[in-house]
């Protein structure tokens, strides 16, 4: 067990996956000598050589398309997309090829690709460096979509993603790259819950707060603030946003009768819409209030100085808690 940042945990995860399986290869821009723009792949070129840590030309569709070819050949490519906003040139290869080849060949071709994406806002970055594109991928059958929320989760989930015979889009909240946590790199993966399962990170009885990624920490802060005001919030970290673990979500909502979903991505046709609709289908008779969404606005990601107005913060979550509890605005602002 040791304390490490989320970036180091991802590095450790890649390293152990590469040691365990010689078919695991890394592809991406600047991932070799530089160790990636976030230094996530630091040291891997030295350890595994240029045949396994491949510095690629600057062409995202090219990276993804050649990874498809390597997967055909039996390799297990782990692709690094430099920033969330640069995945779009590879979108065609991901949705038309990576996601569909297993289905198109009725299982004859496997695409055990892992697509790592430094993800989301909150770091004051330049344009195109803070996007939350997860809904595009969630809408595409054939992909699994995973979001890490702390170093230990990142370590375990990434190992599971690489081991999976299905393609996995793996979101790493770049806001948390430098946040620290305990990671046991000697743990036995067989003892870990599968990556498709959600986890209840805080028990509660009044409201179910569903989220993922960097937003998990904010949800936990909201739960602490609400507790002071006598509202008990259960926080669920989805971990997997495709598929969603509805067993865990619905069990919680049936207990609390109230649901809020929060994420950084825009609201319209987002992951929150999907989860709220599913909660309505599955838990209608248990609901005490209309489920709420607390999300980014339906706008292009704003300039860095304004991102605080876009990202759903503690107060916006607490305001939603007030709505589902049907009480005047008492919680929002209470934390200050």
């Amino acid at each position, binding site marked *: 067990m040791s304390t490490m940042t989320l970036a180091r945990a991802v590095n450790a995860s890649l390293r152990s996956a590469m040691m365990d399986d010689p078919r695991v290869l890394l592809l991406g821009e600047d991932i070799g000598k530089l160790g990636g723009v976030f230094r996530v792949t630091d040291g891997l070129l030295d350890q595994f050589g240029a045949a396994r840590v491949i510095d690629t*030309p600057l062409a995202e569709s090219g990276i*993804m398309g050649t990874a498809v*070819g390597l997967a055909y*050949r039996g390799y297990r490519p782990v692709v690094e997309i430099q920033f969330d906003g640069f995945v779009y040139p590879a979108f065609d290869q991901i949705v038309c090829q990576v996601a569909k080849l297993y289905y198109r060949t009725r299982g004859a071709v496997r695409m055990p690709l892992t697509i790592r994406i430094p993800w989301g806002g909150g770091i004051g970055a330049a344009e195109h460096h803070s996007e939350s594109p997860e809904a595009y991928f969630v809408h595409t059958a054939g992909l699994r979509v995973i979001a890490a929320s702390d170093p230990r989760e990142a370590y375990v989930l990434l190992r599971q993603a690489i081991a999976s015979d299905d393609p996995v889009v793996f979101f790493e909240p770049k806001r948390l790259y430098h946040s620290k946590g305990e990671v046991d790199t000697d743990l036995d993966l067989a003892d870990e819950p599968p990556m498709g399962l959600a986890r209840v990170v805080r028990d509660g009885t009044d409201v179910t707060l569903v989220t993922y990624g960097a937003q998990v920490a904010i949800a936990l802060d909201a739960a602490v603030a609400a507790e002071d005001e006598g509202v008990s919030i259960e926080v669920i970290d989805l971990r997997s946003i495709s598929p969603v673990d509805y067993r865990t979500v619905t069990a919680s909502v049936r207990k609390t009768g109230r649901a809020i979903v929060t994420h950084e991505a825009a609201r319209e046709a987002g992951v929150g819409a999907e989860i709220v609709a599913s909660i309505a289908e599955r838990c209608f008779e248990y609901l005490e209030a209309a489920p709420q969404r607390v999300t980014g606005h339906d706008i292009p990601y704003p300039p860095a100085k304004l991102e605080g107005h876009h990202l759903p913060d503690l107060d916006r979550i607490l305001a939603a808690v007030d709505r589902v509890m049907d009480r005047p605005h008492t919680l929002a602002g209470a934390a200050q």
Partner: protein
Amino acid sequence: MLTPAAVPDLALSVDDAARVLTPEGERIPDPTLDPWLGSLDPGLLRALYRDMVLTRRVDAEGFALQRQGQLGLWPPCRGQEAVQIGTTHALAAADMIFPSYRETGVVLARGARPDEFVMAWRGEAHTAYDIQRLRMAPMQVIIGAHALHATGYAMGIQRDGADEIAVAYFGDGATSQGDVSEALVFSASYQAPVVFVCSNNQWAISEPVDVQSRVPLAARAPGFGIPSMRVDGNDVLACYAAMRWARERARRGEGPTFLEAVTYRMGPHTTADDPTRYRDAAEVERWQRRDPITRFETYLRAQGLLDDDAVAEVAAAADTLAAAVRAACVGAQTRPGVEVLDDVYAEPHTGLAEERREYAEYLAGFAETEERA
């Protein structure tokens, strides 16, 4: 004017393409291609002829089956048999092919069963052939995407140190796609053992090749550091020789090669297309005189390798294959409906498992109603 500016004749001419057979079927020397033709083994020559004739017959059958409502669509390859059969015969069985949708001859030369030609176009499956047995990826519909797959696969061959190559087939229109340019960049950077076969059949649906390029397509590759050859795509021997040259380069570790096979799509783009809207009959007529099968037949007869009996025997074999394709098509059994939900993921998936269970129950409800009725 918002139309592409006039293109130098060079980009469009056919006569600068390397060939060893004239359109009249006369053997002429070519310094680059001749070394790859050796003594022209009669068995190989007959096989090339036979596979071209069989391809044309299967293609005609596919067309007819579509017109009779048996297939949803068919992309004819009439006129392109020489590039498909010539290049494929130059490969080893282990070489991996990434084809486009028009490569009926490649599928045939790889040994497809009769049903494997038509079930995809009938809508019974996305990929109808056994990709392991044929060593062929599914036919690609997204223009140019598979040039990258072939490149990545070739990078895998490199890592494995295997004596194999990868091949991508695509059309002239595909060269406008970013993925093809990216494949040229990647394959050149890593010197991957891949051959790109561009069948320049002059048209991308209704867009002529001069909308795609101001220079001969083969002239682009050298700018990426990739040797290329502009070869007569209606000369099966030239296509065979060009692929042998390219394959040897790849095997020797000399990296990718780009072949532009100058040919012509004699029929419509697909059975849904109306080529009379965009090209004139005189052009088709001109290309008719360059027919790859007639040309080769003339040559073989002159060599004493083919006579009327042999021609009739091949024609009969082609009819037999076409009949088998037809029988497989007409006799096709559609899979049970609930199977649309199968093979989406390699590993258990909670969401889809539930969706499948619900749909199976829903379908079972109909069965019960029918039983009661």
